[in-house]
């Protein structure tokens, strides 16, 4: 798939007028997250990494967002959402039990750990979890579909789409304080926004994106 916003890097604005100090500080901390676990043990971490790779298959040839580590830090800090489905335990317990149950299901069905399965087999298990088709003693009373939707997908996708690499990929303007925006109408772009490559205009878009500050 060709890049829609070639060369656009939201981080090029980091020292410009669109980022205030609290934003720079919050994003710097996020970018400094090391790709290693603090909350999960090694087995759960291996499973989580594999799950993240399937939930968000990141483009090769660029830096990878350490999604698993970002989820891990949310749990290490126990930063909660302010509510949970009554059928789920608190997030730390839900994550530990959910990953263990997924791995146990992989062993039961494939005689192998989840993270060693082929991508297609991993996807099949994740889809079965999403559809609530995984149960049995490994899951105990953890409802698979609720865990998938309210916990697993929610935390993983929130982590990924909080990362500047994801913002650049989708052409999001990113942080915007205090400068904000001026051109509000359709097909109007401020010079500090991502330029979209239209067929035949990729080079022009790339030039525009190189000038984003």
């Amino acid at each position, binding site marked *: *798939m060709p890049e*829609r916003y070639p060369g656009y890097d939201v981080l090029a604005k980091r020292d410009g007028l*669109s*980022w*205030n100090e*609290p*934003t720079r*500080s*919050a*994003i710097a*901390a*996020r970018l400094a997250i090391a790709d290693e676990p603090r909350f999960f043990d090694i087995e759960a971490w291996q499973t989580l990494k594999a799950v993240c790779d*399937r*939930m*968000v*298959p990141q483009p090769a040839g660029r830096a990878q967002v350490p999604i698993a580590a970002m989820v891990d830090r949310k749990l290490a800090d126990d*930063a*909660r*959402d*302010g*509510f*949970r*489905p*009554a*059928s789920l335990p*608190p997030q730390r317990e839900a994550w530990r039990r959910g990953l263990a149950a997924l791995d146990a299901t992989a062993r039961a069905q494939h005689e192998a750990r989840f993270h060693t399965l082929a991508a297609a087999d991993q*996807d099949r298990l*994740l889809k079965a979890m*999403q559809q609530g088709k995984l149960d049995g003693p490994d899951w105990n009373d953890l409802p698979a579909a609720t865990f998938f*939707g309210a916990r697993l*997908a*929610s935390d993983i*996708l*929130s982590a*990924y*789409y*909080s990362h500047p690499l*994801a*913002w650049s990929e*989708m*052409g*999001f*303007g*990113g*942080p*915007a*304080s*205090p*400068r*904000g*925006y*001026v051109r*509000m*109408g*359709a*097909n*109007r*772009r401020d010079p500090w*926004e991502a330029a*979209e490559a239209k067929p035949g205009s990729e080079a022009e878009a790339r030039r525009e994106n190189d000038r984003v500050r």
Partner: protein
Amino acid sequence: MFDEALRKPRGKGGRAPDPMRVGGWVPMREYPGDEEVDFAIVGTGAGGGTLACKLAEAGFSVVAFDAGAWWRPLEEFASDETHQGKLYWTDERLCDGANPLKLGANNSGRAIGGSTVHFAMVSLRMRPERLNSRSKLGYGADWPLDWREMWNYYTEVERALAIAGPVNYPWGPPRPRYPYRAHEINAAGLVLARSCEAMGIDWSETPLATVSAPRGRSHPCVYRGFCVTGCSTNAKQSVLITWIPRAVKAGAEIRDLAMVGRIETNAGRATGVHYYREGQWRFQRARNVVVAGYAIETPRLLLNSANAQFPDGLANRSGLVGKYLMAQTNQAAWGVMEDEIRWYKGPPSLAITEHWNYTDTGKDFFGGYAYMSQGPLPQAWASTLSGNRGLWGEALMREMEKYNHQAGLKIVGEVLPQEANRVTLADEKDQYGLPIARVTYSLCDNDQALVKHALDFMSKSLDAIGATDIWTEDDDTCHLAGTARMGDDPTTSVVNADCRSWDIPNLWICDGSVFPTVGAVNPSLTIQAIACRTGDRIKELASQGTL
């Protein structure tokens, strides 16, 4: 990391933070705990913050408490969905029922200024007939308030917040001109405008609580689009920068990071509040206590305050505390435009139609809905796609790539008040050792019929202007109300029209929980109007010696 306000209270030592100036302070009056103040107010959002101002300006001694922090947005708010989680109520709550609610970022604030610090600024008057929906429209319950009186209080709030709105608003009885001019409509808003015109219905610029011209130390809105994660430029006229500074100036004391856990009573009257601040439980004596914690924390506090004289909780002889919880439906139709829309620019809902709030024909359900243009930020959009369509993996990432061409129409829909939708206490405890709230919620057939009508109409509207890939988000809810409804009859309501509880004469409830019906528009302006009215009524009652 820019979260000092979460760790150490700022409203103390005779001063309060000035949210309008970097590092700024203003003097603040303080009251000792053993001094019986006129009013202890629990919560500083649209209800409590507004009432604190009105009562302090009327000369009463006021101490207002909030569990949240006292922010200075100019130096502490990032342009970031995750970081700004510091504005939300993130203590645990359990959600069940057929349609479990989403709380936290969705509708629950925890800050001086409450949820108005992160609200989308949509400032609408409730349609007059909805205050008499039982007698005029045949459903729900009547409010004990006269819409003409409310119309005047709406005007007071619109002036206090310098609402930016259109010259002529298409629906409802005449209203005074909005104080500030309407904002320029972004491309996402123009999608709504064009789609309404294609369907032959009216639309309007949305009246918004963010300034379109300078006002004091507030600069005009710069259209950065992070409104629902907190305004870092103070264009947004939240309670934090409007009513609270006025309250402090008038002599109110505001205590941040102060979690009220129990209201004390003696011989049938409230005597003060127990609150946790700086590592210990403390007590403030008060002649009157006002609960303003919104539709979940308000009933939770009343229920957690049960004692020997009031074994079922305070103000609960009717048995209705916690019941008739309402969550406005918030479904949407989404589509892809050929144009670049870039809906992240500007306030998220710059254009609105209240057509199906003011039109009673052509419907097979009670109630109504407004709908507005949208501008979800990346995390919110990913959550919408995955939560509703079950997308993940490549499928999700391909969909996210269309972000800048996406447009959407989203309702604020009325739901019927149902007794079974309620807040109760769970066995699980929070960090203060207090039972947490269990929130039980199910939509009824009428609510579903309203949603279906809205989704059909909005899908056709998008189709009529050439949107592609149209799909409907069938399951979302937003603003809360109910759980301590007002009324004329002590057996069927918790408070009277003055927000005074029937059971305990010096216990008041002043927030969205007093709504008997939720209406079809965002509730914040109505909550503030009720708070203004309550303030005036308390002043009157005091002058008559009947407080």
